Structures are given as C-alpha cells and as structure tokens.
C-alpha cells in the first residue's frame, strides 16, 4: 500500500511541486559536486519575512542569513554525513529574520549519492520551531525568576502537606534554623514552640476553610543559635484540580527584633505611666503636706498679732515652733522619697539574708528586750539575695520596727521570719501576732504616702510607702495578709532574675 502510494506520488509532478514549495517552512538543495550551487525554495524566504518579489537569489544568501556558529556546525555535520552514510543529518539552525529577530529552524536532511556512493547533493527540509523555542525561553526565565525568589536571604518559603509535614523549604530556612539534614517529610509543627502551636493549627484550619485568602500569624521557633525567633508567616492553601487544599504555602520573615522592640516599648510605656501616676501623686502629696504646714504658719502668725494676752501669745509661739519643726520633718521625709524615686538604677550586690536580718534585729534589740518580744528566724544561713544593700537595710528595719510598733498589748508579741525560693524570687515573710489591719478597708491605702492606720502618735505614714518603692526599684514586689486582732504577714519578693 505504502509502496503503491509513493510510486503514484513520485510519478506525479504536482505532488513533488507541493512538497518542494509548501509542505515545509523551508527546503533547499545543495550541490556537493563541482561549483557550490544551491537552490532554496520560496517558503524558506517567507519564513524569514521576505515577500515574493524581494527574495534573495544569490547562491550564498541562505548561508549569509544563518548564525555563524550554526553555519560552522552545519559544515561539520555535513562533512560527517558525507563520510558516514549512517550519520543522520538533523540539527537546529538559527537564521536572522528580516526584522532582525532569530528564527529557529529544525533542519533534517539527506545526502543523495550515485550508484558508486559518491555524494551528489544535500537535500534539507526545515521546520520553523521558533514558537517552541520562545516558550522554552520564557519557561527558563520564569524558572530563573522563581529560583531567585526561593533563594532569598530574607524570606522563608516553606510548603507542607495537609498533615503539616514539610514538602519544601528554601535554603534560607535551612540555614537560619540550622537543619543539617533533609527536613522534607518531617513535622513542621514540632519545630514551633509549644505555646504557639495552637495558634498555628488555628491558621492552618483557616487555610482549609478559605484557601483563596492569605492568613497571617506570628509564630516562635528555636533558631540555629538556640535563641527563639519570632517569625511573621503568611499562609495560603494551595488548591488541587478538584478544588481541595493539597498543600499549605508558608512565606515568612523574621520579626524578632520588631517584637522585642514592641515589648521594650510597651514596658517603657508601662514604666513611664507608672512613674507619671507616682509623680502626680507625689506632687499632690507635697502640696498637701507643705500646704497644711504653711496654712498653720499663716494662721498662727495672724493669731499671734491679734493675741489678747501673754498667755495666748506664749501658746501661739509654742505652736509656731512646733509647726516649723514639723515642716522641717516633712521636707526631710520628702527628700527621702525623692531619693528613692530618682535612683532607679542603683547597683545590686549579693547579701546573705540571714546576716542582714541579724544585724537589723541587733539595732532593735533594746525595744525587743524591753517588750519581751519573741523573735523566731527560720532562714537558711546560706540564702543569698541580690539587692541594693541600702534598700535591704531600710526594708528590713521598716518591716521589723512596724512589727514591734504595732504589737498587740494584750498578748506576748511574736515575730516570725522565714524565706523560701519561688520561681526566680526569694520570698521573705515577716509575720507578727500584732494589731493587724482591716485589709478590706485599707488595702488600697496601705502602701500609700502619708497613710496611717492606728491611733499612733509617731506614725509618719511614709514607712511602707518607701519600703514598697525600694522593693519595686529592685523589680520585686510586696504583699500583705492581715487580720484585725490576729496579726499581719508581709511578704517581700526579691527578684533574683534581673
């Protein structure tokens, strides 16, 4: 059948005419005997953009339109084919289009020989493969473009399957988190710090629910240098042909510094607003105290000038004297308070708590003996606290002298001191069986300035205020439990972390 068909075709000149002029994007005959001669068909020149009346006719015109490198390769290939009849003639040549662009031609040829095997002619058919070449080039560009993005040194690009196992991770991700082995197939969830895992899961669930939008989350992860890095991630579901989520694409970047700065800023803001409140309070208290004395002085002077007799005059003078003394005391108190408030960064040093308490008890030993107060100290002799030494002295003296001052007269006084460690703090407890306080009424005022709670003549109302300030200046805290008629227990939390 095939033979029959080709016999018919070979006989029919119209068919030969069709094959020669239209079946290919180009065809030429190149003579291999005698002077170089070449016949090039019209469709070749049309492929290069030449119109029917402008086609080059020179013998070397086709070779001139060919890329020089390809021309050399074509000559080599031809030489091989002439030598070896088994060698197929098939290669891709670049030609220059009339507009200067490249036209890619797949050239397949055959060497015609006579009965003795002498090469007579090279017949070459050409197919224009420029569109395929352009597609290929575009794909290559795209691939280069994406590999450039994936190789980014500031963005993590990760993909996971629906179970959260890695299916892809870019080099930067490997580098930053110090993975030495392939992580593909391992769980992405386990690398995230425990507190953030539920947040991550929540986001993945949202990707399943709404794969078309991106979902953002900040997750923390241990990096190669063992520090915790906060990363901002954008998660998106990759949808398969059936519209179901097949993978999760995660693009992330490091926001550790940002988060740290945010925390620092927040802390600073807290400190500042605390200080602001304290300062405002302080301003009012100063004005209150100084005003009350100055008011007295003003009134007394006026009354003194209008005094009716010597007896009154003496009384007013006496009161004037007391008032000026009190004003002086107030100013001393205020300067104590200012000193605490202005020295936030005094250096800390380690102190043996037991030894410091013994020293304070020695200072108070006279009153303790006078009132037959029993003091029990249950503090390990080697327990060390890191404190501003002067503050510790003041705190201990204040708490212990309060316990002495506010003892209950109707029962033998007992002061118990103990200490223990608790999550980064040393907690000192000073417990007494004294008068006690109604905390429901007084909790808010207890550590305030110029608040006194008992009918006690020598209460200044600054002791616990200064104590609280001292403790807070050392990043610690103080709490109290108390009951009227039972006693009080003050707990001081010394910060051993910072």
């Amino acid at each position: 059948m095939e033979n029959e068909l080709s016999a018919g075709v070979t006989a029919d000149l119209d068919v030969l005419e069709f094959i020669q002029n239209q079946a290919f994007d180009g065809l030429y005959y190149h003579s291999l005997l005698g002077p170089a001669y070449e016949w090039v068909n019209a469709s070749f020149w049309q492929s290069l953009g030449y119109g029917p009346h402008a086609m080059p006719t020179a013998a070397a015109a086709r070779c001139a339109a060919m890329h020089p490198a390809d021309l050399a390769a074509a000559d080599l290939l031809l030489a091989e084919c002439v030598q070896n009849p088994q060698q197929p003639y098939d290669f891709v040549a670049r030609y220059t289009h009339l507009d200067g662009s490249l036209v890619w031609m797949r050239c397949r040829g055959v060497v015609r020989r006579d009965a003795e095997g002498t090469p007579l002619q090279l017949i070459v058919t050409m197919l224009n493969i420029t569109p395929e070449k352009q597609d290929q080039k575009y794909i290559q560009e795209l691939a280069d473009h994406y590999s450039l993005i994936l190789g980014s040194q500031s963005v993590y690009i990760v993909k996971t399957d629906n179970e959260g196992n890695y299916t892809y991770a870019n080099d930067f991700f490997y580098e930053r988190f110090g993975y030495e082995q392939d992580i593909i197939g391992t769980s992405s969830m386990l690398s995230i710090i425990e507190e953030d895992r539920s947040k991550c899961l929540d986001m993945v669930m949202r990707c399943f629910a709404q794969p078309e939008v991106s979902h953002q989350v900040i997750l923390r992860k241990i990096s190669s240098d063992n520090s915790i890095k906060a990363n901002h991630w954008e998660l998106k579901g990759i949808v398969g042909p059936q519209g179901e989520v097949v993978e999760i694409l995660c693009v992330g970047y490091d926001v550790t510094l940002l988060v740290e700065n945010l925390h620092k800023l927040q802390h600073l803001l807290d400190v500042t607003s605390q200080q602001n409140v304290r300062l405002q309070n302080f301003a009012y208290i100063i004005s209150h105290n100084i005003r009350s004395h100055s008011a007295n002085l003003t009134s007394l002077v006026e009354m003194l000038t209008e005094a009716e007799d010597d007896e009154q005059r003496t009384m007013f003078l006496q009161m004037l004297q007391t008032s000026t003394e009190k004003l002086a005391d107030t100013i001393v108190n205020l300067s104590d308070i200012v000193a605490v408030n202005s020295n936030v960064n005094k250096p800390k040093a380690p102190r043996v708590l037991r030894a410091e308490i013994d020293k304070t008890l020695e200072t108070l030993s006279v009153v303790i003996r006078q009132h037959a107060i029993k003091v029990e100290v249950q503090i390990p002799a080697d327990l060390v606290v890191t404190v501003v030494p002067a503050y510790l002295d003041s705190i201990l003296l204040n708490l212990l002298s309060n316990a002495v001052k506010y003892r209950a007269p109707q029962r033998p006084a007992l002061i118990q001191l103990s200490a223990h460690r608790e999550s980064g703090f040393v907690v000192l407890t000073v417990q007494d069986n004294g008068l006690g306080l109604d905390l429901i009424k007084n909790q808010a005022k207890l550590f305030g300035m110029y608040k006194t709670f008992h009918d006690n003549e020598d209460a200044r109302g600054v002791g616990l205020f200064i104590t609280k300030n001292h403790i807070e200046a050392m990043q610690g805290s103080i709490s109290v439990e108390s009951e009227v008629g039972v006693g009080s227990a003050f707990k001081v939390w010394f910060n051993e972390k910072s």
Partner: protein
Amino acid sequence: MKKANLAYVVEDDPITSTITKLLIKKNLHFKEVQTYANGQRAFDHLLSVLEYGCDVPDLILLDLNMPLMDGWEFLDAFARLPLAKSVCVFILTSSIRPEDIDKATFYQQVSGYFSKPLDKRNVALMQQLFQEATC
C-alpha cells in the same frame, strides 16, 4: 440667724485642730467647739450622743486624710446615722487634688469644700454658706 451652738473639728493634726477651733469660735461665734483626732473618734462620739440624747453638732469641719477612719469613710458612716436634725458639713483640707473636690460634690451632706488655710476670706465664705445651707 441659724444657731451656732456646737461645732466639731475632725482633724488629725493637733495644731491645725487648735487653730481651726479658735478661728471658728471667734469668727463664726460658736459657743462650743469640740475637736476629734480622726473620723472614728468623732463617729464614736456621735453614736453616744445619739444614745444618751445629748446635743448634736450644728456644724462639722472635716479633714480628709486621717488615720483609722478618713473623711470619706466618716461621711459614709455619718450618712447612715438616724439624726433628728440635719448637720452642716464642711470639708476643710489641704488637698487640692481635683479628684477630691469632684468626689465631695457626690456627698449630699457636704455643704462646702475649703482648702486650708482658713483665712479671713474663707471664714467669711464659710459663715455665709453656713447661714444659707438648708441643713
């Protein structure tokens, strides 16, 4: 003219207390002025006054910052007392804290807020308010 028989001065500072006592005796013409070192003492006394049917004060000058029972606590306790006649209460304090002045307006019994010192101007104002007060 409203009667000015008995006044209480509730004030923890003894000197201020004495000065205030002298001033209102002289300028507001009170026959008797009693001083109390804090709200609790004044309140306790009022309780026994009620029990034994003695004289209830016509005026109370009340300081705010005091131990045991401060001015606010006194006002809360005082509001619950079954008094036969109304008593004029003036706050007399050295506090100029805006919150304190605001807070005082919420207490119906308080007829005036005075910042120390109790000078001539304040005394005149106090006298006028005392006469006008519905209490």
